[in-house]
């Protein structure tokens, strides 16, 4: 049924559109699918499905380009890929890393589909076994990955995760609506930060700034010839790792409510734990690419289970997918509990369209990877303004407010400092991602368990300690135990030399101050909303204890201790430009945007940056600017998006895209 030429045609069309959207970091499937929605109404169901599935399927594949080549997590699905993929690109092995990643993606996608073919009939009762305590344990298991990614000083990693958790609690509490670190006068903070912005800020901004300061290309070596064959070979050597990580991907994707945002971290943690030689992780180990990439495509297949069987979207793009399906034909496909009984053939069509789309997507990506990998040989000063333009645009899609850009810049600054002082950025991000589910499931499990215990001790214990929970507890303890024992050998972000004592101490004090502020702020939440108070207070307390230990250690350890890691010292020789002067460029763009709007500010920024920072001629700068503006405008026009307005736009009416 799905192999009819017209179906395949639409599938390829969807794949190509998905690749075009997915290549740009931060946009992902939501933007792409929204674009397709208007065409879905009344469309032949199978063709419409092919178009949409094609688009959804390739986003986790194509986002790998940004992750590996630029160190920018293209979407939440490939954050962990950055850790090893980007160092590989720096070493000139971008093509190898990419093709290994694509092979792993392809394999994960197909294995996921094959698994689902059998599992989908039996999935419903199994998924229903995952009650709130089980979901809480899965969340805690995800958090335990911090143990592996904590870096050389484990406590710093734990505090980083605590900071991430606290940043994740900013805004309206889920239980009683109490406000944390925000007020009714700061509506932006009330909704909390979005993952897109935090992910881009914590990984992309520091890398862009760091590379800019060195003023060279990402990779100073010529790409190795035939790199893509080497990548496939690397994948084949690690095929069993790929199998295991794909299964992890399917399993986590199947569980509703958790989404797939941690699956790549879990897969990365698993990869590290099961590898014998761990010394290269974080500085370019191909297994660190294969693991997460196998899981993130398999997850898309797994994510179909909650979406199709329960009508509960596992992600933002799946939510639009449901809307789209409802528009197809005469609306006879009903996503939800009746899907399997009434539309089994469509269910299978979706599963296998996903697999076929993966094949097409991967082939196109592998063919393109050699050429795209050459981007890493371009002088970075020419690439950076373009990248910054794209991530600003992507960040702005989060809430369409100027504050999106402020948040990107502010959290980006935090990311720069964490990178400098070797605080684990993955730990921070895992904390941020899991803050909401950890708090929600804790509160809900507590509330439901209390009610069960009121009925009787036995009901309560049965509810809290189900077999699944017990297994998950054991897995978590084992994982933490081995993780901590091995953490010293795993430098997820490479080795960092130590410098003086003063700068790391100031940063630690600033982090402590924020955590203290968060503690104080949460303690003000009145009793009737105590459910919103417990979680931030608990996290802040643990983090403060960690901070105290670090402060005491800093007092007594010598300057050479890893505690005082400082990249400024290490990179002093290769940095051509200062941190503040580089940051000033982006701060100027931000301020100019608030005054004259994004497009005008961007035009001036691009022109001046290329002329003065990159030291190109006015003519070159002019052409670059025109091309950049034309590109961003055509993309915004295609996606039907606006740009951030500034003060000027409130005074005079300007035509699009200046509005």
């Amino acid at each position: 049924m799905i192999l009819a030429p017209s179906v395949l045609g639409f599938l390829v069309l969807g794949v190509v559109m998905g690749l075009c959207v997915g290549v740009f970091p931060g946009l992902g499937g939501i933007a792409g699918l929204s674009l397709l929605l208007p065409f879905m109404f009344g469309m032949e169901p199978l063709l419409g499905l092919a178009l949409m599935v094609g688009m959804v399927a390739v986003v986790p594949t194509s986002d790998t380009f940004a992750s590996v080549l630029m160190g920018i997590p293209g979407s939440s699905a490939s954050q962990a890929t950055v850790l090893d993929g980007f160092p590989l690109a720096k070493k000139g092995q971008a093509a190898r890393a990419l093709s290994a990643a694509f092979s792993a993606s392809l394999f994960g996608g197909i294995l996921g589909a094959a698994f689902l073919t059998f599992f989908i009939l039996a999935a419903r009762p199994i998924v229903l076994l995952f009650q709130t305590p089980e979901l809480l344990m899965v969340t805690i298991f995800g958090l335990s990955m911090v143990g592996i990614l904590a870096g050389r000083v484990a406590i710093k990693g734990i505090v980083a995760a605590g900071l991430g958790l606290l940043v994740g609690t900013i805004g309206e509490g889920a239980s009683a609506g109490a406000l944390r670190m925000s007020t009714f006068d700061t509506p932006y903070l009330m909704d909390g930060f979005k993952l897109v912005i935090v992910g881009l800020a914590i990984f992309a901004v520091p890398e862009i700034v760091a590379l800019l300061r060195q003023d060279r290309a990402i990779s100073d070596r010529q790409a190795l010839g035939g790199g893509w064959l080497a990548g496939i070979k690397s994948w084949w050597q690690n095929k069993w790792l790929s199998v295991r990580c794909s299964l992890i991907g399917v399993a986590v994707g199947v569980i509703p409510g958790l989404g797939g945002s941690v699956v790549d971290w879990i897969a990365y943690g698993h990869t590290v734990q099961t590898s014998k030689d761990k010394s290269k992780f974080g500085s370019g180990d191909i297994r660190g690419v294969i693991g997460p990439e196998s899981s993130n495509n398999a997850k898309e297949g797994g994510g179909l289970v909650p979406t199709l069987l329960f009508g509960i979207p596992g992600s933002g793009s799946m939510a639009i997918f449901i809307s789209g399906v409802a528009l197809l034909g005469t609306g006879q496909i009903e996503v939800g509990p009746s899907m399997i009984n009434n539309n089994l053939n469509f269910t299978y069509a979706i599963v296998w369209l996903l697999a076929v789309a993966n094949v097409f997507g991967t082939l196109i990506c592998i063919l393109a990877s050699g050429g795209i990998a050459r981007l890493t040989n371009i002088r970075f000063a020419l690439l950076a303004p373009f990248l910054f333009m794209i991530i600003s645009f992507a960040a702005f899609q989060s809430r369409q407010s100027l504050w999106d850009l402020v948040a990107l810049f502010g959290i980006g600054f935090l990311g720069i400092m964490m990178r400098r002082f070797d605080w684990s950025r993955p730990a921070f991000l895992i904390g941020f991602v899991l803050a909401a589910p950890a708090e929600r499931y804790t509160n809900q499990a507590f509330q439901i368990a209390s009610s069960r215990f009121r009925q009787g001790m036995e009901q309560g214990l049965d509810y809290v300690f189900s077999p699944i929970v017990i297994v998950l507890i054991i897995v978590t303890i084992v994982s933490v135990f081995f993780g901590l024992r091995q953490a010293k050998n795993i430098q997820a972000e490479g080795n960092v030399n130590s410098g003086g004592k003063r700068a790391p101490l100031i940063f630690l004090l600033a982090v402590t101050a924020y955590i203290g502020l968060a503690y104080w702020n949460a303690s003000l939440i009145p009793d009737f909303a105590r459910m919103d108070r417990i979680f931030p207070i608990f996290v802040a307390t643990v983090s403060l204890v960690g901070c105290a230990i670090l402060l005491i250690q800093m007092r007594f350890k010598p300057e050479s201790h890893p505690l005082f890691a400082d990249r400024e010292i290490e990179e002093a020789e290769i940095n051509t430009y200062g941190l503040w002067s580089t940051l000033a460029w982006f701060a100027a763009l931000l301020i100019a945007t608030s005054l004259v709007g994004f497009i005008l500010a961007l035009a001036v920024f691009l022109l001046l940056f290329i002329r003065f920072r990159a030291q190109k001629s006015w003519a070159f700068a002019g052409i670059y600017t025109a091309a950049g503006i034309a590109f961003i405008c055509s993309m915004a026009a295609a996606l039907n998006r606006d740009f951030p307005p500034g003060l000027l736009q409130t005074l005079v009416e300007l035509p699009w895209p200046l509005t």
Partner: protein
Amino acid sequence: MRLTKHTIGASSIALATGLVMAGVAQADDNGLDLAGETVEWIIPFSETGGSARWANFYAPLLNEALPGNPTVVVTFMPGAGSTRGANHFQGLEYEDGTTIFGSSGSTQFPYLLDDPRVRYEYGDWNVVLASGTGGVVYLPADLAEELASGGIDAIADENFIYGSQGATRLDLVPLLAWELLGLNVEPVFGIEGRGDGRLMFERGEANIDYQTSSSFLSGVTPLVEAGTAVPWFTFGSLDDQGNIVRDPTFPDLPTFTEVCAAAAACATSGTAYDAWVAFFTAGFPAQKMVFLPAGAPQEAIDTYSAAFEAITQREDFEEISLTRLGVYPQMTGAAAEAALATATVVPDEARTFVIDWLADRYGVVLQ
């Protein structure tokens, strides 16, 4: 920080004045032809909610029905329980008829409860469509059996768990209904959508739930057929005189009013019951509405009303809307205005009662 705050304040004033002038200038144009234009339909929720489904259902139909067949794009502007998007819309003035707004019960309730975040005024806007819906309460099979054999007293001692999105949202209506019936229902907050609430019910953690009609049809009917869920009552529907009657989509189910009348603990009169009726009336019979911004000229309102009217008169409308919207009035013109009037006004006693009840029962203070 301070600079930006000032700029925002100054900007909205400047924007308002600038746009009023533009609005006046264009108000003389006769008729509205949107050929080549793009209509932006602002939905103050995320892509995942019921409002998204509702807007996605109407958007392509609107494209066909509006003169000039403009592209209709649904723009999602979630935040602060829809008050962010509504506040944004309040800041707009009619320009050329290419911006419309879709509100929901969750936009109405904070407005009625004097939520401090509300900076919008329904009276300024121009309604062109009002979509009604209903709600169905259902129970697990074992409790339904106890209810059937022993009446409501049989389940009065049960510890009910309900997955809720928040007591100040639409969930206020079922929570207050159960309270009036004397049930001991503990809401577990932090649910992200009614679908998650249904999943909690399916997992056996929640043992009472409600869904709006369209979600009940698609999500719960299979459970009813499988014998795991049993519908109990609907919230009912309003007739032309404003009386609560049986829900036309579920004529076999009793209404809450009938159940209440039969229960000893519950009275179909008095402040509490009147408050329930007031908030039901605000939240369900005109749950989702489409507005043109303040200052829209009559011909623009007429153009949009006619377009929605044409959609609801389509021959296949009943067929295509059945599973997406349920059998509920899709009101335009005077009917929509009447629906808006009943949906955005509650008597002061009802408001005071609910605000006090929220504070006493759930510790929710809206200030």
